[in-house]
């Protein structure tokens, strides 16, 4: 017997609540009927600014009408519910419908507040032509239509919405005035100083005229809008007026239906009306613990709790309120704000930075060593870090300035001019400023400098500094066309190259050179092409050994003395006594000079001679750990839930499963992963290429683009997913997208910012372009094609595959440490490897 669920309100809150209910299996339990004031499916109100600004807005609809049909939801679009009879459990609509309910959700949202003033209205219901709210799709399209051919507009209210409206109208060439009653723009988010900087940007760069401390007294009308009269008696001539002086929750239905209404309809922690356990209220029309929220993030949280309670999935689920944190782009300016704007107590710390000329302002408020507020304007690169610190109360850096700026690495701001010639610029390849300058002196361009000196060709973190020095030294730093090519010998970027390879069915590196490289074979292009062909063709790739770098030919990492390091796979960093015994026996048998625990939670046997590799693998009898490839390397884990007192999720098993599934997959650069069982992040998942953090209730944060190597970067939150299998799946989707789109040697910490987090979310989480299924399918093909390369010990790929590269040099030449003061018991080999 299905129950009747009636939802009043088809906006973002109502539709989201229904989505959450369906996701919990509510579709089989309830017949769902929705009422919406507006004659549309459900749309994303936040996108209205984009619509007004003339941006692409095809994605404004969150749920097209098909969605209602597919989920058997009856949608009454353009129908208003006027009363609820709680005792008969019925709703009455303005089209005469009466409908019984078992559960009712009120999500009526809010409406534009039109402050009382002369000239605003023609009659009780009709605004003067030329006066607009900015709340609905109809408002927005009407505004766009009206703006055609007009000259000037006044926006009443200088908050977020008002500035978006002003910015949008500027795009239609109107003179735009913003009238703000208080002294500060966006006073909900910004303090006086930040507000002043924003004002300066809007006036100088966007061309909006701001009038603060002014209140409108009347709208001058001559049948339609002619101007706005201010309280000081002055007048601004204008053809149209947009009113964004606040919103008011739509509580009329609650009032006439006898529900407790203060500023909005009052709810308990389960999102139920305090008067009736069968009536739920969600979104801007509800008041929870005295707060009424007008932003979207709290609404998502409320909808989750509502769905948990209403479906009985978790009857004890509770909403505890949301912390106010926003990150947005207003009028083309990045703004992020959370918590307090200014200090409130005498011992609150307040750290501020202001650079009005560039339109940048940053401040943080710290209480008892915890971040309790932050404001960022113009430059929001630290927002991810600050948000995490704010949400989780993480310990803060002792140097508070690090909260505002990234200080890692050689600062470009130091300027190329002030550096001494002897200063090392590229630490990977030991290139000094002097080396770069002398190359420029010989007439090299940036690209040529990089080829000649190898500066910037290692980890790449110094590239922009190299470019600055070249420019300072008078060289051309113009990016040359070849910078976008995947390999230097083929004039195609990666997507075009992939398309050409697929179209011509090129399965080997030599065939790619023959078909696509104007000058034929090129040594430096071989390794990136071999990697790409493996990504494209998986098991169908034709393996030509010479296309592979030595590490990939012998499946071990070459060391400075020509010996190799051997790292067996130890998924998730979990091993057994038996494996450790085999490792120890192997080390003894082959006189391994150094045994080292790696940063990736594995064991590295260093100083292994190439000739010994097959026998070492046989003796270990463990699979390859891929510590040598541009590939998925390792998944670090913490002890998760089995033993840890704090674990919220079984990070250990998830890490093992990820490593087992995606082992050895080729990628543009190495991939280091980690899974943490709680936000304490003992496995350092915040700074991994892909990091996964359990946040409780089988929910997992998936972060991408983190690094703690040549660069320090905190991973960006791609999504918080429900269920460890979903985390495993999303990890693979990101990995495959990176495999197919990352530039050669481009680590995720460059790839993620280049593509953009929002774009990655749209592509991989929301599947905007419908590419996810294809990514998953191709990833599965790659996974299925996996073969442990260490099995080549039994059938070498080529003659002399494991033959020493420097037969006469005593190996190893590096100093040997054995952990004690006695000399290492290792015979230095001078094995004459000449082939007979």
């Amino acid at each position, binding site marked *: 017997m299905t129950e009747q669920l009636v939802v009043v309100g088809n906006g973002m809150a109502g539709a989201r609540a229904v989505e959450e209910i369906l996701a919990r299996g509510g579709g089989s339990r309830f017949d769902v009927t929705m009422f919406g004031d507006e004659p549309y499916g459900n749309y994303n109100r936040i996108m209205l600014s984009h619509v007004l600004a003339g941006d692409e807005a095809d994605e404004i609809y969150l749920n097209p009408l098909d969605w209602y049909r597919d989920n058997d939801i009856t949608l009454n679009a353009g129908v208003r519910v006027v009363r609820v009879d709680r005792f008969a459990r019925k709703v009455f609509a303005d089209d005469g419908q009466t409908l019984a309910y078992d559960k009712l959700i009120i999500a009526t949202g809010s409406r534009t507040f039109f402050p009382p003033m002369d000239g605003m209205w023609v009659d009780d219901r009709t605004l003067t032509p030329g006066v607009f709210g900015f709340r609905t799709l109809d408002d927005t399209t009407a505004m766009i239509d009206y703006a055609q051919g007009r000259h000037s507009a006044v926006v009443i209210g200088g908050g977020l919405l008002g500035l978006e409206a002003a910015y949008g109208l500027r795009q239609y060439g109107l003179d735009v005035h913003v009238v703000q009653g208080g002294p500060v723009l966006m006073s909900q988010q910004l303090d006086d100083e930040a507000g002043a900087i924003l004002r300066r940007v809007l006036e100088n760069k966007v061309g909006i005229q701001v009038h603060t401390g002014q209140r409108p007294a009347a709208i001058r009308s001559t049948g339609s809008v002619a101007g706005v009269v201010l309280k000081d008696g002055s007048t601004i001539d204008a053809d149209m007026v947009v009113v964004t002086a606040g919103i008011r929750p739509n509580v009329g239905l609650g009032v006439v239906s006898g529900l407790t209404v203060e500023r909005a309809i009052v709810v308990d922690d389960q999102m139920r009306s305090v008067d009736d356990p069968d009536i739920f209220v969600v979104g801007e029309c509800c008041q929870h613990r005295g707060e009424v929220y007008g932003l979207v993030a709290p609404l998502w949280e409320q909808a989750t709790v509502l769905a948990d309670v209403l479906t009985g999935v978790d009857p004890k689920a509770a909403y505890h309120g949301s912390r106010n944190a926003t990150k947005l782009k207003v009028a083309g300016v990045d703004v992020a704000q959370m918590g307090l704007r200014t200090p409130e107590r005498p011992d609150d710390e307040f750290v501020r930075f202001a650079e009005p000329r560039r339109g940048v302002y940053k401040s943080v408020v710290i209480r008892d060593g915890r971040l309790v507020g932050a404001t960022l304007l113009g430059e929001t690169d630290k927002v991810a870090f600050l948000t995490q610190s704010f949400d989780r109360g993480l310990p803060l850096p002792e140097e508070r300035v690090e909260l505002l700026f990234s200080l890692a690495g050689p600062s470009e701001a130091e300027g190329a001019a002030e550096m001494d010639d002897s200063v090392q610029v590229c630490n990977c*390849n030991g290139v000094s400023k002097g080396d770069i300058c002398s190359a420029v002196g010989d007439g090299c361009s940036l690209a040529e400098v990089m080829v*000649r*000196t*190898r500066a910037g*060709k290692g980890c790449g973190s110094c590239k922009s500094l190299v470019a600055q020095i070249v420019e300072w030294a008078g060289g051309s730093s113009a990016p040359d066309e070849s910078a976008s090519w995947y390999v230097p010998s083929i004039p195609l970027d990666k997507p075009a190259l992939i398309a050409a390879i697929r179209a011509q069915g090129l399965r080997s590196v*030599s065939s790619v050179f023959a078909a696509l490289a104007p000058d*034929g*074979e*090129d*040594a*430096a292009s*071989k*390794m990136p092409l071999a990697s790409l062909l493996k990504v494209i063709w998986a098991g169908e790739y034709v393996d*030509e*050994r*010479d*296309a*592979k*770098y*030595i*590490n990939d*030919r012998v499946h071990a990492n*070459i060391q*400075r*003395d*020509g010996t190799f390091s051997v790292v067996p796979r130890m998924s998730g960093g979990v091993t057994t006594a038996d494996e450790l015994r085999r490792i120890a026996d192997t080390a003894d048998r082959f006189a391994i000079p150094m045994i080292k625990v790696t940063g990736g939670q594995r064991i590295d046997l260093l100083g292994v001679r190439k000739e010994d590799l097959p026998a070492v693998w046989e003796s270990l009898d463990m699979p390859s750990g891929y510590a040598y490839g541009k590939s998925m390397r390792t998944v670090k884990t913490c002890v998760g839930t089995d033993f840890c007192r704090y674990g919220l999720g079984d990070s250990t098993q998830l890490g093992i499963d990820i490593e087992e599934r995606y082992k050895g997959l080729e990628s543009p650069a190495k991939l280091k992963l980690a899974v943490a069982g709680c936000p304490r992040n003992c496995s350092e998942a915040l700074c991994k290429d892909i990091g996964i953090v359990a946040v409780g209730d089988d929910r997992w944060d998936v972060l991408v683009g983190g690094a703690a190597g040549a660069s320090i970067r905190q991973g960006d939150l791609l999504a918080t997913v429900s269920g460890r299998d979903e985390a495993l799946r999303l990890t693979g989707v990101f990995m495959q997208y990176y495999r197919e789109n990352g530039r050669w040697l481009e680590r995720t910490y460059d790839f993620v910012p280049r593509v953009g987090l929002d774009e990655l979310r749209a592509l991989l989480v929301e599947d905007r372009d419908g590419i996810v299924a294809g990514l998953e399918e191709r990833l599965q093909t790659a996974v299925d094609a996996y073969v442990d390369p260490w099995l080549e010990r039994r059938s070498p790929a*080529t*003659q*002399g595959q494991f*033959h*020493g*590269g*420097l*037969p*006469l*040099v005593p190996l190893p*030449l590096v100093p040997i440490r054995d952990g004690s003061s006695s000399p290492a018991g290792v015979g230095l080999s001078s094995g*004459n*490897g*000449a*082939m*007979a």
Partner: protein
Amino acid sequence: MSAPGVTTHRLGPAAAVPVGEGRAFSVAGRQVAVFRLRDGSLRALDATCPHAGGPLADGQLDARKIVCPLHMRAYSFVDGTCPEGPGVAVFGVREEAGELVVEL
């Protein structure tokens, strides 16, 4: 057929050097790396990279050069020169009755 002052050395079966790869040999106390280009022809250079002692036989090659695996310095097969530093010696090498022959 050798130039004056040059001795020929037989290094065993030519099949020891696969296409596109290199192998190192000790020849009269000197280390020599022999390479087979993708067109099947042979090249021979000093086996040790003068930069940091890297094994050139483990490098990657094309028709013109061999690239050291340690720091990616490239050496010309024609004259052994390197654009970034000192070069290496080049030796004559050929296949004779299925055997590798180098001239030092």
